[in-house]
């Protein structure tokens, strides 16, 4: 790179994530992607809503869902959304170490969420015999929730890759947009989860 993109408090731009053209493009590109993701998840939600009562004699959502675990998962993911906000706050204040710390906490909470989800699926399969092939409800449930879980896996891998790759670089105008892009993606994963716990679990329990 021909320009010196490293940051110091004197030349710090207001928003380091959008100070370069590349940063601006990353920002637009990510939102473009999120628009598409909205439609992707809408089709999965629509399929789930259409098939959620087609249990084919197998267990229904009301039989198997446990609100305690879902509540714990919700808290983990919601909090991880806040911790990534904290990370971006420290990025704007040019505090690389604190940003890394909060990103680390975000990754930790994300892994906690993932652990709960793996346990949940394991519990459904072994204790209720509720699998992807049990019923149309089963297929729709695992596809929707699993797709979200896949997004979490991707997000955690992305975050860890970013943290390790940039550990010795410090914060500069080259990598600030990367961190910002990740944080937007991570918030979106949380948005999808809000609808999953509402539509799948809570509405499933109500009946």
């Amino acid at each position, binding site marked *: 790179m021909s320009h010196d993109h490293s940051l110091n408090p004197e030349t710090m731009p207001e928003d380091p994530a959008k100070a370069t053209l590349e940063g601006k493009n990353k920002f637009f590109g990510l939102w473009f992607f*999120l*628009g598409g993701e909205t*439609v992707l*998840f809408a089709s999965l939600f629509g399929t789930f809503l259409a098939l959620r009562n087609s249990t084919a004699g197998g267990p229904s959502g009301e039989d198997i869902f446990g609100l305690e675990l879902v*509540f714990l998962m919700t808290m983990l993911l919601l909090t991880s959304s806040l911790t990534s*906000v904290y990370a971006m706050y420290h990025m704007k204040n040019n505090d690389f170490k604190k940003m890394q710390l909060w990103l680390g906490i975000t990754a930790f909470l994300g892994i906690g969420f993932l652990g709960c989800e793996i346990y949940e699926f394991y519990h459904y399969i072994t204790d209720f015999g509720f699998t992807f092939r049990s019923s149309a409800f089963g297929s729709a449930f695992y596809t929707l929730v699993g797709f979200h879980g896949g997004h979490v896996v991707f997000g955690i891998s992305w975050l860890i890759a970013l943290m390790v790759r940039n550990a010795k670089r410090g914060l500069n105008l080259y990598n600030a947009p990367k961190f910002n892009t990740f944080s937007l993606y991570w918030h979106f994963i949380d948005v999808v989860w809000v609808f999953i716990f*509402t539509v799948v679990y809570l509405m499933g329990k109500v009946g």
Partner: protein
Amino acid sequence: MDNTNTNSFQKQKNKEEMKKQLITFVLMIGFTIVAFAIVATNAMDKMFAVPLLLILAVVQVGFQFYYFMHMKDRGHEFPSVMIYGGVFAAMLTIAALVAIVWW
């Protein structure tokens, strides 16, 4: 250090923004607890509970988009177009898929 003042001004601004986001987070946790409480206590009839749960979710997601993802800030016209465009297509998709099984 000519622009120390601008920097401390910016820092102050960032701090205020963070405070708003923290309040947003508390509200979001509140909405979540209310939503779970409605279901856990069976406090409401299905006919009222489902729309209420959906409203709570939509409000919470609004907070997430506008505060956590900064859609309320300047220069977010494009993100708004993308997300509302996505939501529009999402509504059509869900309406179509749910309508298919009614027949």
